[in-house]
C-alpha cells in the first residue's frame, strides 16, 4: 500500500443554471444516471486497489452540481460508502458549487457527505458571472444571500476568486473586504485566469499589473487578515512553506499534477482535471465507459503520458532547473500554459508573477519568524 490518497475530480453533470461568459467548460444538458454512478464507483474502487491506496478524495463539481438535487447525492453517498466499506476502502467528498440553487434542503447532505463544508466561487468585481437573464448584479445578490444562509446553517464556506482584468482595477483592500466583510468568508483562494474552452473574458493577465495587485493583496492580508485567521490561498501555503511548516501548495505548483489527479465527466470522458475534460477533447485520456478499467486507461494513455513528461521537458528546455524557486513551482500549470501558448511544453505564463510572490512571501515569513519569541523560532536539526 502506498498510503497516498487518490484524488479524483467528478463532474456528474454538465448542465448549469448560470451563464458566466468566461466559463471554460462545454456545457450540456447531461448528467450521470444512478446506474452509471455505480459503474464509476466500482471503477474508482478497482483503481484504488490497483494503486494500493485505501483512501480517495473525490471533488464534486459541474456544470453546477446542485442541479442534481439532494436526493441524488444522498443516494450517491450511501451507495458509494457501502461499496467502499465492503472492500475496506474509504471515500471522502468535497463539493464546489455556485450556490445559486442552494437552499436549506441541502443542509443535511452537505453535513453528512461533505462534513459540513462547501466550496463556492465568486469574483470581485463580478463582471462575468451572470444569471441566465444576463445580470451580474442579481447573481451577486443571490450568491451573497446563499452564502449568508449557508453560514447561518453552520456550514463552512470557502470561496475561489478568479482574478480578471476588472479585479486589477480595484484596490486590494476592497477586494479582500468584499469576501471577508460583505460575504463573511474567511477562507479564500485566488486563482489566475486562462482563456479556456468556449469562454471569453478570462484572458491571461499581464504580468506587471497582476504582480502589483497580488503584492498589494498580500500586504493587505498580512495587515488585516493574517492575525485574524483569514486563510488566503496560495499566500498562506507559501507562508507555511517559508516558515518551515508543512505546506499544502495548490495544484498548479505540484511536482507533477498528472501523478496527482484525474477528472471524470458525465459523458465518461477522463482527463487531467476539470479544466481539460470538457473543453479539450484532444487531451483526454479516454472514455471511462468504453475502457476496460480506469487503471488500464490511465496507464496506456498517450495524452496522460504527455502530461507526465512535461516537467522533465521543462527541466531540459526551460530555465526551471536553474530557478531558485523550483521546489515551489516545478514549471507551473499546464492548462494555463496551453491556453496562453498552444502547447503544454512550456513553463507557466505567470512565471514572473509567481517569482515575485515567492520572493515577497519569503521576506514576510522571515520577518514573522523574527517577531516570534525565540522558543517558537528554533527548530532542531
Amino acid at each position, binding site marked *: 500500500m502506498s498510503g497516498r490518497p487518490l484524488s479524483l475530480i467528478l463532474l456528474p453533470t454538465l448542465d448549469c443554471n448560470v451563464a458566466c461568459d468566461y466559463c471554460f467548460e462545454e456545457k450540456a444538458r447531461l448528467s450521470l444516471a444512478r446506474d452509471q454512478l455505480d459503474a464509476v464507483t466500482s471503477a474508482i474502487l478497482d483503481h484504488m486497489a490497483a494503486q494500493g491506496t485505501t483512501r480517495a478524495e473525490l471533488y464534486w463539481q459541474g456544470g453546477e452540481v446542485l442541479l442534481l438535487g439532494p436526493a441524488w447525492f444522498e443516494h450517491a453517498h450511501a451507495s458509494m460508502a457501502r461499496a467502499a466499506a465492503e472492500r475496506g476502502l474509504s471515500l471522502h467528498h468535497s463539493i464546489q458549487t455556485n450556490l445559486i440553487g442552494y437552499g436549506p434542503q441541502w443542509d443535511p447532505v452537505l453535513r453528512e457527505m461533505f462534513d459540513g463544508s462547501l466550496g463556492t466561487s465568486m469574483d470581485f468585481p463580478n463582471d462575468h458571472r451572470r444569471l441566465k437573464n444576463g445580470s451580474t448584479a442579481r447573481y451577486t445578490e443571490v450568491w451573497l444571500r446563499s452564502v449568508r444562509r449557508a453560514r447561518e446553517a453552520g456550514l463552512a464556506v470557502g470561496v475561489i476568486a478568479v482574478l480578471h482584468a476588472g479585479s486589477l482595477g480595484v484596490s486590494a483592500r476592497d477586494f479582500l473586504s468584499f469576501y471577508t466583510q460583505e460575504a463573511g468568508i474567511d477562507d479564500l483562494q485566488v486563482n489566475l485566469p486562462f482563456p479556456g474552452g468556449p469562454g471569453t473574458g478570462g484572458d491571461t493577465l499581464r504580468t506587471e499589473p497582476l504582480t502589483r495587485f497580488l503584492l498589494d493583496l498580500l500586504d493587505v492580508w498580512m495587515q488585516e487578515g493574517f492575525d485574524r485567521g483569514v486563510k488566503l490561498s496560495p499566500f498562506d501555503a507559501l507562508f507555511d512553506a517559508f516558515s518551515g511548516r508543512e505546506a499544502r501548495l495548490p495544484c498548479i505548483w505540484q*511536482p*507533477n499534477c498528472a501523478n496527482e489527479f484525474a477528472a471524470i465527466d458525465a459523458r465518461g470522458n477522463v482527463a487531467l482535471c476539470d479544466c481539460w475534460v470538457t473543453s479539450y477533447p484532444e487531451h483526454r485520456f479516454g472514455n471511462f465507459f468504453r475502457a476496460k478499467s480506469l487503471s488500464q486507461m490511465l496507464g496506456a494513455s498517450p495524452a496522460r503520458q504527455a502530461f507526465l513528461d512535461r516537467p522533465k521537458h521543462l527541466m*531540459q528546455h526551460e530555465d526551471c532547473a536553474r530557478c531558485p524557486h523550483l521546489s515551489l513551482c516545478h514549471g507551473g500549470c499546464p492548462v494555463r500554459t496551453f491556453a496562453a501558448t498552444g502547447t503544454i511544453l512550456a513553463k507557466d505564463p505567470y512565471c514572473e508573477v509567481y517569482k515575485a510572490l515567492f520572493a515577497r512571501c519569503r521576506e514576510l515569513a522571515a520577518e514573522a519568524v523574527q517577531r516570534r519569541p525565540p522558543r517558537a523560532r528554533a527548530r532542531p536539526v
Partner: protein
Amino acid sequence: MPAGWAPEHPVGQLVLRVTCAEEAALADAVPSERVAWIETTVALAAGEWPAEAGLDVVLADPARDAPLLYDIARLRHERPMRVTIEGVPGVATAARVAMALQLPVRLRLQQPTEATIAELAAVLEGYLHDPQATAPVEFFHSALARRLHGTPLTLWTALERDPAVHRRVADDGGPDPRAPPQDDGFVAAHLARLVADGAECARCRFRGLCAGYFKWPDSSYECAPVVGLLGQLDAAANVLERDLADSADGAR
C-alpha cells in the same frame, strides 16, 4: 557489489549494484533480508525490485540525468529512496531538482575541482534555506549533526566510503581500485600519515570531521576551496546553535 556477485558474499548486508536489466533479475534472486539497498541508474530505477528494498539512484551525468528524476520521484512513496549525485559539473542543478522533489541526496565527492565546489556551495545554500528541501543532503546533514549533537562520524562514514563499514566490489568481483583500500584501519592510518607528513590536515579545524577525506587519493590536493565550503557549513551551524540556545533560554 554487482548483483551477480552476491552469492560469493554469504554474510552481511549487501548493497547490490544494478546497471542493466540482466543484473536486475539477479538482484531479485538475492534474499530480501540481505539487501540493504539497490544501487542503480535513473533509467532502470522504475523497474521491479525486491519488496521493501531501498533504491539508491546514481546520477552519473548529473546535468543529463537530473530531469529524469521527475519520472521516478513517485517511487519514494513505495520504498526508501535516495539520489547519489557525482560531484562533477551539473551537480548543483541535479541536487536542486532532487531537493525540489524532496528526495534524500548523497553527494559522491572525490577531490572536487574549484568549479565543482562553487556548485556545492549552491547546493549547500539550497539545503540550508530552500523551504521545500526537507530531506537530508549528505554530507551536509551529517556534518551538522556532528557539530550540533556531537554525532561521532567523519566524512568517510557520512559518504559511505569508510572501508571499515562499506566495502566496494568492482565489476570483476575484486576490490574496487577507485575505492579506498579494504582495510578496517585505513581512515585512522591515512589521517595519521597526513599529520605526520605536515599536510594541511595537521592545522585544519575540520580535521575531526574530514579525517583526510579530501586528501585521498592525491595527498597534495589543495584544500583551501573545500575548507571554505566547510566554513560556510560551520557558520550555518553557529546560527542554528545560537537559535537553539535562545530556544533553551526561552523555555526556562
